[in-house]
C-alpha cells in the first residue's frame, strides 16, 4: 500500500496535502465562525482571474494569482467595512468580476490551455518542489501568527467587545482576509479552484459539531484537515480519481459521520433525561 510513497510526485503531493490541509482547516475555524463560508469560494474564483492573467502572459500563474487574490480579499474587506452591504453580496460581486476577467483573459490566450484545467480541478501531478516551498512559507507565516489566535478568536466571538477592549479588530480583519486569500491560492494546485472552499469549511464545520470550546474546535479542525488530505490523496491514487475531489469527498464522509454520531448522542441524552424521574415524582 505504502510503496506509492516512494514516487517523488506522490511525496510532493503528500507534503503539499498535509500543509494545505493544516492551513485551510486552521483558518477555516475563523471562516466558519465569522459566517464567511462564501469567502473561500469568492477568493478561489478571484484566484482564477489571477491564474488566467498569468496564463495569458505566459508567466508562472501563481505569481499573478497571489497578488490578484490578495487585492480582491482586501477589496472585499474594505467594501464590507465601508458599506451596509452583507458579506455574501460583496463577495458575490467580487467573485463574478474576477471570474469574468479570468474568462476574458483565457479567451485572449490563443490555443487550448492545459494549465487552466489543472487549476480549475487541481492536479496532484502538477505539484512541484517550488509549490511546496511557497506553501511552506505560508505555513511558516501562519505559525508566526499563532499568538494572535486568542485576539482573533475574541473578536470572532464578539467584534464589539474586541473594539471596546481596543484590539485592532479592523486591521485583523484585513490580515485574516489576506492570509485566507494566500491559503486559497496555494491550495488551488492540490484541490482546484472549484473545490478549494470545501477545505476551508468542511473540517472546521465538522470540528464545530464535536467541540464544546473554540480551542478544541480548532484542534479537531486541523486534525480532520490533515488526515482527510492524506487519506483522500492515497484513495485518489488507488482508485485513480481526481485528488481534490477525492479529498473533499473524504471530508464529506467524516462530516456526515460526525453529524450522525452527534445526533445519536443527543437522542441518547434526551432519552436519559426523559427516563430520569422528576423531583416531584415518587422515586420507586
Amino acid at each position, binding site marked *: 500500500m505504502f510503496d506509492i510513497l516512494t514516487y517523488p510526485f506522490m511525496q510532493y503531493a503528500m507534503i503539499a496535502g498535509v500543509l494545505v490541509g493544516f492551513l485551510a482547516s486552521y483558518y477555516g475555524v475563523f471562516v466558519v*465562525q465569522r459566517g464567511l463560508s462564501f469567502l473561500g469560494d469568492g477568493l478561489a474564483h478571484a484566484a482564477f482571474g489571477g491564474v488566467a492573467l498569468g496564463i495569458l502572459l505566459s508567466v508562472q500563474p501563481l505569481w499573478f494569482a497571489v497578488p490578484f487574490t490578495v487585492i480582491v480579499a482586501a477589496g472585499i474587506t474594505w467594501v464590507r467595512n465601508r458599506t451596509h452591504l452583507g458579506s455574501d453580496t460583496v463577495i458575490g460581486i467580487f467573485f463574478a468580476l474576477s471570474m469574468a476577467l479570468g474568462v476574458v483573459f483565457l479567451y485572449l490566450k490563443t490555443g487550448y490551455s492545459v494549465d487552466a484545467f489543472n487549476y480549475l480541478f487541481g492536479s496532484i501531478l502538477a505539484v512541484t518542489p517550488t509549490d511546496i516551498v511557497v506553501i511552506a512559507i505560508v505555513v511558516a507565516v501562519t505559525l508566526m501568527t499563532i499568538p494572535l*489566535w*486568542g*485576539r482573533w*478568536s*475574541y473578536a*470572532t*466571538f*464578539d467584534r*464589539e*467587545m474586541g*473594539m*471596546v*477592549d*481596543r*484590539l485592532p479588530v479592523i486591521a485583523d480583519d484585513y490580515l485574516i482576509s489576506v492570509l485566507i486569500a494566500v491559503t486559497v491560492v496555494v491550495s488551488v494546485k492540490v484541490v482546484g479552484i472549484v473545490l478549494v472552499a470545501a477545505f476551508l469549511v468542511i473540517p472546521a464545520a465538522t470540528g*464545530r459539531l464535536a*467541540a*464544546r*470550546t*473554540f*480551542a*478544541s*474546535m480548532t484542534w479537531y479542525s486541523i486534525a480532520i484537515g490533515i488526515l482527510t488530505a492524506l487519506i483522500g490523496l492515497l484513495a485518489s491514487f488507488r482508485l485513480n480519481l481526481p485528488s481534490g475531489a477525492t479529498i473533499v469527498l473524504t471530508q464529506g464522509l467524516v462530516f456526515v459521520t460526525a453529524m450522525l454520531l452527534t445526533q445519536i448522542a443527543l437522542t441518547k441524552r434526551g432519552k436519559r433525561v426523559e427516563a430520569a424521574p422528576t423531583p416531584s415524582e415518587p422515586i420507586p
Partner: protein
Amino acid sequence: MKVLDVHELCVQFSGHYILHDITCGVDEGEFLAVVGPNGAGKTTFLKAILGLVKPASGTLLVHGKTPEEMDPQWLGYVPQVKTLDRSFPALAIELVVSGIRRGWPGKIKARERETALKALEAVDAAGLANRALNSLSGGELQRVYLACSTVRKPRLLVMDEPATGIDIVAQKTLYQILDDYRKDNKLTVVMVTHDWGVAHHHATEVLVINREMIAFGLPNDVLTNEVLARAYGHAGHSMTNGLE
C-alpha cells in the same frame, strides 16, 4: 474627580446631531440610568463612553481621561444578551477568562480559573462555570456577562439594556445582584434602560435624553410626568404610574 464627566457632548452622523449638548457626571459607587424613547441616542451615548463613536464637540472623560487615552481595563461592558452568537462553541468560564485576558482563552491557567470562579461566585453563577454558553438562559447568560466584565475590577461598568430578552424573575435577581455588588465594591454603573421602574428603584442618578438632554438628577426629581412627557413627546395619562 468624577468617574464619568460629560460636558456639552455632541455626536454627529452624516451631518445630523444624534446627541446634542449632554452634560452629566457620576461619582464613584453611583448608578446612572440613561432613559429615553427609541432612537433617543441612548446607545450612541453608551458607545461614546466605550470609545466606539467620537464626539463632534464637548468632552467625555472617565477618571479624567478620554476614552482613547484610558486603559481599556477600566471599563467593564455588558452587551445585550441577544447579541450572543449562539453558534460559537464556548464555556461560561472561558467568557469570564476572556475578560481577564482581553483575548479568547485556549488553555486556562489555574490562577485565571480561580479568579474567574470567584467572579462567577460573586454574581451567584459559580455553578454555570462549565456550562456551554449556548445552553444558558437569558438571565444566566447576563450574570456570566456581568462576571466577565467585573472580573477585571473595572472603574466603570457599562450595561446596555441588560433586561432585554430575560424574564421578570431573572431581571429582579440580576438587579439585586448588581445592587449588592455595586455597594460592596463601590462600583460605578452606567446603564441604558427603557424601564423607568428600574431607573427609579435602582439608580442613584437618572439622565433623560431624546437626542438632547431633557433632564439629569436624582430619580425622584427627574422621573416626573413633566420631564417624561417632554422626552416622549406627549402628555397623556400619567407616565410615572407606579413609580411614585
